[in-house]
């Protein structure tokens, strides 16, 4: 069916027709002008009658009379009243026929055939085609702007597109055609349109997201216009609603009426992503006895968001009958804790508060931070659970307690008698798409406050980055915090449009983690030359350096798996061949400083308490070394030295870390390791490697054999080895490699001497001497540094003390029969 026929089938066609004749802007202007004329002319006529007996204004009177200005003025007022009424009637006509897509209660009838928003697009394209309709309709234009596409580019594109005559209307999965269906149809069938978006870096997901946000914005505005809706009227405070209920003098001291919170009063449409939790709370609080619920979730505002949604339903009279006309009061545990310093006062106040609540008869008592109250009472020697149990089991009280997940597991879950009185409700963590929806309203608020504009990809990136770059806490809270920080930052920096790049730029500034938003020329150069930069410090391990460099290139260009650490490597090989040095060189070259390498000597974590030491102890509440380390520095290299020596539990922990890019600490809080490069080193298989080298084989070619041997010895499980991005065999260093290392070390020493005005003559014989005495088969180049310190640096120190080596002098070393002698020239 073609567009025109399709459009005319719905009763909405007439409405769309009126809207196209008199747009919203036109109606607004018309109303304003007519109001001004009514008042101005009315005032002039009043002035005329008020002054008609005054001689001073006799000239004006003649003027008015000769042109019949009074009756013409009355005519002008009548005309404008008519125009004003007509524009108001049109507004009412359009408003009452507007159907919402986001509000499930306002359902479509099958006969409507399409939604209002979809109809607007089709109507705009009725003489051309759907693509043109999308670009010419107000809603389509808004979607394109939200995608960060400027009007000039959009116009240039649509002008270049030929019109398809008699285009058929796409089919819908739902009863009626929605904008979602049109967007899907355009993206999948109009390859030019998809290409246009893709060239601007926009994906189909972002197109649908921007569409959802624009509909949300349009419908929120429309929703607020309709003041006659029952729920809008129900929001008005009743005159004598609390006259039949008791006063709560003491409770008022320690609490606040949550109904007055801005989040409850807000007129913005909220997404239904908390319906399940709210329904569970309503069921629990509707029981005839023990109508109490415990809301358990991560620390942060997520639990409160559920509570606010519940309170909004209570305010809108859109809740279970047991909660109708109830007054939700938030008891502030911290206020009681700070006011009641001894057992008697606390018990007395708590009993009185609960009695007041029962007597009042209309209160839903919400206890914030319930565990805090419990712990405080216990610390004063009070049996808090026994104290409140009789109240909780009463039929005339409804309590909703809030608790953090970790506290819940540690203090509450095990308390059977307490938990019998509560229904436990877990707050589900929101996914990225839901977090984006949560921040729709906040972003619109920020736009108004700071006079800035967010594109959809920007807020989607905010939601994504909140969990990706910031560990710990609730993601939706972090996303809203980020949004609140980025708006003033953008304003200060003169950025009016905030796109994805601006968000990534801000995050990079805040965290020092390079995001893949913008890569500077210097950084590109650093990445391209990463291999050669690391090779300057790591000698003879070309394969290892290449593998690590490639992983980093993947990470920075955005082609890596974002749900895993940046890279994970298992370095196998004998001691002193450059495993640790590679990690250090990587931290220095890529992350800017060797300080960005965090080192864990895994041989310290082989006892039964290894896990407690690493991720913290639940019983003692002590934080773990590893979890604290990652929280402090979320971006860098973690070196797991002597990995094979740690306990099996720790190895299992790393199975998860390497696979999923996070772990949970002792309190159940997630720690993000997705911006970390893990390098585990091990001497396992060193003997086999030596054996192969002696036999003239290249250990790299026999990697499988070495790994098989390690697995057969039970050092690592095959699944753990497979979790690493790459297992790299470090071969024993050859003499030429050792010579190169010796040269590097001597050059470092020479550099330090230059600062004192001295110079060091690095001869081949000196290098050979260092290699011969500073390295061995078992420890590779490891003893070399110590040897240089003891022999050469020691010698130089003596020369300085003796006053022979002074500024401007050159120190040379002569070797005869492996005996070192120095010469100053």
């Amino acid at each position, binding site marked *: 069916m073609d567009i025109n026929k399709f459009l005319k089938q719905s009763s909405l066609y*007439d409405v769309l027709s009126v809207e196209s004749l008199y747009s919203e802007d036109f109606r607004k202007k018309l109303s304003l002008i007519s109001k001004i004329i009514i008042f101005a002319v009315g005032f002039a006529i009043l002035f005329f009658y008020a002054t008609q007996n005054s001689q001073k204004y006799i000239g004006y009177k003649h003027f008015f009379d000769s042109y*019949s200005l009074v009756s013409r003025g009355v005519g*002008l*007022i*009548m005309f404008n009243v008519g125009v004003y009424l007509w524009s108001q009637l049109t507004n009412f006509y359009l408003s*009452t026929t507007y159907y919402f897509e986001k509000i499930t209660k306002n359902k479509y009838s099958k006969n409507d055939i399409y939604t209002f928003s979809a109809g607007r697009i089709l109507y705009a394209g009725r003489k051309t085609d759907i693509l043109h309709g999308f670009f010419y309709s107000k809603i389509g234009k808004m979607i394109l702007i939200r995608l960060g596409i400027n009007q000039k580019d959009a116009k240039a594109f649509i002008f270049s597109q030929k019109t398809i005559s008699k285009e058929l209307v796409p089919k819908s999965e739902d009863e009626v055609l929605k904008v979602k269906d049109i967007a899907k149809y355009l993206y999948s069938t109009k390859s030019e349109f998809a290409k246009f978006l893709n060239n601007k870096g926009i994906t189909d997901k972002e197109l649908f997201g921007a569409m959802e946000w624009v509909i949300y914005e349009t419908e929120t505005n429309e929703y607020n216009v309709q003041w006659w809706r029952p729920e809008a*009227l129900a929001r008005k405070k*009743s005159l*004598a609603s609390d*006259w039949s209920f008791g006063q709560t003098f003491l409770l008022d001291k320690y609490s606040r009426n949550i109904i007055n919170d801005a989040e409850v009063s807000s007129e913005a449409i909220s997404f239904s992503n908390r319906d399940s939790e709210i329904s569970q709370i309503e069921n629990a609080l509707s029981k005839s006895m023990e109508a109490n619920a415990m809301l358990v979730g991560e620390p942060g505002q997520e639990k409160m968001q559920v509570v606010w949604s519940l309170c909004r339903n209570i305010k809108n009279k859109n809740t279970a009958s047991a909660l109708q006309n109830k007054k939700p009061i938030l008891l502030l545990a911290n206020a009681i804790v700070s006011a009641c310093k001894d057992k008697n006062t606390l018990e007395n106040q708590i009993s009185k508060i609960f009695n007041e609540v029962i007597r009042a008869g209309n209160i839903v008592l919400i206890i914030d931070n319930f565990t805090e109250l419990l712990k405080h009472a216990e610390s004063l020697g009070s049996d808090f659970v026994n104290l409140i149990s009789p109240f909780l089991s009463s039929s005339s009280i409804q309590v909703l307690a809030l608790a953090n997940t970790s506290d819940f597991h540690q203090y509450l879950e095990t308390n059977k008698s307490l938990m019998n009185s509560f229904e436990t409700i877990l707050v589900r963590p929101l996914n990225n798409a839901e977090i984006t929806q949560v921040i729709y309203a906040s972003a619109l608020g920020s736009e108004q406050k700071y006079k800035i504009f967010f594109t959809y990809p920007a807020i989607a990136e905010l939601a994504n980055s909140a969990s990706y770059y910031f560990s710990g806490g609730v993601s939706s809270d972090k996303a809203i915090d980020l949004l609140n920080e980025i708006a003033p930052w953008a304003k200060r920096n003169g950025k009016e449009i905030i796109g994805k790049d601006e968000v990534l730029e801000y995050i990079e500034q805040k965290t020092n983690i390079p995001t893949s938003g913008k890569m500077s020329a210097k950084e590109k150069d650093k990445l391209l030359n990463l291999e050669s930069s690391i090779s300057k410090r790591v000698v003879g391990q070309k394969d290892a350096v290449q593998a690590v460099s490639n992983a980093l290139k993947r990470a920075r260009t955005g082609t890596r798996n974002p749900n895993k650490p940046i890279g994970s490597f298992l370095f196998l090989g004998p001691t002193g061949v450059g495993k640790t040095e590679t990690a250090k060189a990587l931290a220095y070259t890529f992350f800017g400083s060797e300080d960005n390498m965090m080192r864990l000597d895994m041989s310290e974590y082989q006892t039964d308490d290894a896990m407690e030491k690493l991720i913290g102890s639940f019983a003692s509440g002590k934080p773990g070394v590893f979890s604290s380390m990652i929280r402090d520095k979320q971006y860098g290299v973690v070196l797991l030295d002597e990995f094979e020596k740690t306990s099996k539990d720790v190895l299992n922990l790393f199975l998860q870390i390497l696979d999923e890019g996070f772990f949970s600490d002792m309190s159940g809080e997630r720690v993000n390791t997705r911006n970390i490069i893990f390098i585990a080193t091990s001497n396992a298989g060193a003997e086999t490697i030596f054996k192969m080298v002696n036999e003239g084989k290249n250990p790299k070619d026999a990697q499988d054999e070495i790994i098989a041997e390690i697995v057969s010895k039970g050092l690592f499980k095959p699944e753990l080895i497979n979790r690493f991005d790459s297992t790299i065999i470090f071969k024993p260093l050859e003499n030429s490699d050792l010579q190169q290392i010796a040269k590097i070390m001597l050059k470092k020493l020479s550099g330090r001497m230059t600062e004192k005005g001295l110079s060091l003559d690095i001869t081949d014989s000196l290098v050979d001497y260092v290699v011969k005495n500073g390295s061995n088969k078992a420890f590779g180049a490891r003893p070399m540094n110590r040897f240089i310190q003891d022999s050469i640096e020691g010698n130089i120190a003596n020369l300085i003390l003796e006053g022979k080596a002074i500024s401007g002098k050159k120190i040379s070393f002569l070797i005869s029969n492996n005996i070192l002698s120095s010469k100053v020239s």
Partner: protein
Amino acid sequence: MKLLSSLFGYLKWHYGKALITTFTFWKNILFFLFNFFSIKSLVGNFFAPWKRLADTYPKGFNLKVYFFTFIVNTIMRIFGMFMRSIVIIVGLIVCSIVIILLPISLILWLALPIITAWLIVYGLILIIFS
């Protein structure tokens, strides 16, 4: 043509669907007023003491205390009934006015397109021919 068809569409709505909407609108206003004056809650708790400010009777037999408690509670109940009566009466009067206004508002609604057209046309006549 488009103007005429959209005018016809509007009139169809005005004398059809909008009449039902007017009833819904009127029902919502009545619901709001009933809620605003808390009539259901006040009637349900008509005899309750004012803001539940009542003393509890003593456990043992103490006629004097019992008597005083009875007097205080009775006063609170009478005061509560008095205050509630005022709000209920005012609320019912306002609701009655709204009920009476329904037929008037319906007539006004039916006449509104004619009134609007008359204001525009007669206004123009006055402007041009005065």
